[in-house]
């Protein structure tokens, strides 16, 4: 079959690779009909997640049709249209039972790598490096889905492929940020990043009853999409002082909940951003936490900062003083898709959660490298390119 593979830093190519087969009784094979690039893939492409090998198939946000099931698969049948959680989880370990699916004990077949790095291994993920299991990704004609009863969800007939696709990762991640960030009615919420994840976090905060939701970015086209389709307020960090705007908007309190949806390649203005860029390039820090710092600074006393952006290891100049003296809660997680996808599909069916505008470009799998060029370099207003294998 054909698949889009990582070949090295900033190098992708479409290659012929072996078809996947059933390896466990709880596996399903899914014929991928839509698969989309995520901001996380840009971190792979840029070489910031150093657990990739040349030839690895990438992609983790996808939807397709079940074409084969293992003998222990109970809820899916051949022909089912399913959306699949980007994180792979068993559904039965202690963490899965708490709804913390991305912390699954049994979903990652290479646990030693991250145990060494972080002290414990998270679950597995499709197409996201050998540190998260070395699973083949979804930018391919077919993909093997382990624990299919737990991670794949039948899409209601009334929900289109275009909409359901984003339940796989972006919408579930955004929802988690607002939910575990503790957004409540009356809150003022700020979201850093107007990519698909930030926009979905903003929408989730609105649906959870936030009084005001402000999304911050530096790309005008993305802010315009957020304003139009999500219905939130926006701030362009290149033309205004984010801190001053947020202080004015909250009458000096600071935001109740800050959601960071930028990650380790943050850009910014001024000294702090320049410092991060230089330090990362000199290998003195692995990640650039520019937006995390700003989020912490602008959160009210005893507020919550939820980090959705992906970070690999260590950051520098982390404002621990602000965390302590303001009494903040700082939390982060990889997405617990299995916890949210059924509810998200229901909201999609009711029209409360609309995602079609995120798919600014739809291209055949063969155009994968070009799709990533559009996405990475934010060309032609690209927010997320969808590939149709």
């Amino acid at each position: 079959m054909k698949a889009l593979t990582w070949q090295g830093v900033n190098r992708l190519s479409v290659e012929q690779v072996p078809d996947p087969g059933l390896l466990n009784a709880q596996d399903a094979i899914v014929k991928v009909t839509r698969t989309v690039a995520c901001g996380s893939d840009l971190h792979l492409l840029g070489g910031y997640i150093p657990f990739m090998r040349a030839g690895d198939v990438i992609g983790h946000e996808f939807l397709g049709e079940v074409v084969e099931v293992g003998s222990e698969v109970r809820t899916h049948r051949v022909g089912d249209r399913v959306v699949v959680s980007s994180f792979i989880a068993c559904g039965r370990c202690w963490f899965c039972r708490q709804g913390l699916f991305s912390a699954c004990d049994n979903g990652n077949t290479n646990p030693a790598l991250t145990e060494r790095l972080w002290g414990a291994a998270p679950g597995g993920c499709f197409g996201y490096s050998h540190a998260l299991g070395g699973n083949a990704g979804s930018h391919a004609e077919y993909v093997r889905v382990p624990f299919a009863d737990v991670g794949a969800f039948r899409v209601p007939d009334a929900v289109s492929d275009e909409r359901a696709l984003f339940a796989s990762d972006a919408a579930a991640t955004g929802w988690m940020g607002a939910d575990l960030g503790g957004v409540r009615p009356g809150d003022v919420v700020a979201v850093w990043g107007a990519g698909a994840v930030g926009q979905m976090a903003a929408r989730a905060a609105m649906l959870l009853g936030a009084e005001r939701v402000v999304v911050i970015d530096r790309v005008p086209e993305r802010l315009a999409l957020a304003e139009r389709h999500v219905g939130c307020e926006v701030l362009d960090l290149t033309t205004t002082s984010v801190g001053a705007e947020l202080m004015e908007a909250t009458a000096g309190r600071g935001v109740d909940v800050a959601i960071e949806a930028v990650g380790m390649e943050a850009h910014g203005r001024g000294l702090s951003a320049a410092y991060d860029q230089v330090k990362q390039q000199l290998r003195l820090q692995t990640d650039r936490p520019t937006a995390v710092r700003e989020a912490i600074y602008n959160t009210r006393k005893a507020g919550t900062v939820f980090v959705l952006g992906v970070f690999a290891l260590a950051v520098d100049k982390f404002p621990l003083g602000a965390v302590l003296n303001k009494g903040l809660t700082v939390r982060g997680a990889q997405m617990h898709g299995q916890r949210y996808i059924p509810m998200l599909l229901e909201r999609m069916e009711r029209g409360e959660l609309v995602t079609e505008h995120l798919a600014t470009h739809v291209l055949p799998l063969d155009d994968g490298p070009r799709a990533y060029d559009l996405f990475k370099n934010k060309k032609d207003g690209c927010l997320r390119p969808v590939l149709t294998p």
Partner: protein
Amino acid sequence: MAAAGLAGLALAGAAAGGLASRAGTVASAGARPDRWHAVTILCAPQDVGSPGAWPQPVAELGDRVDVRVVPAPGDRGTELGLRARAGLRPGESPDAADLEDRIRLALRHTRMLLETGEVLQPDRPGTTRTTLTSLPLRLALRRSQTGGRP
């Protein structure tokens, strides 16, 4: 982007360095040859088995290991501990490091079996090409199931 690539390599090296060498598996300061390796399994102690009737991955280690099964605190299930029998421990036997690797693998596989009913298989065949820059990662991956912390 070359700089990013280098930063990446440094990070991979950090993760791989200790993994590739066995010494990096256990925190070297305070190493104790009789320390238990353990995992917590979400099931009742009796479901983990009993002497003569351990799950396959533990049974395969035969009499080379001591086995300890105790209830975990709260709602966390059962703690399964394994350690090399006296005489086979680090410093006592040339095969001690191999046995510790097999112990960690047996613990992980036992948890998978008891919690999910099967041992999750990694994707194969792989699609990767071997390159020079992937050497630290390849070394790390050799012990991606047998190294680590339990």
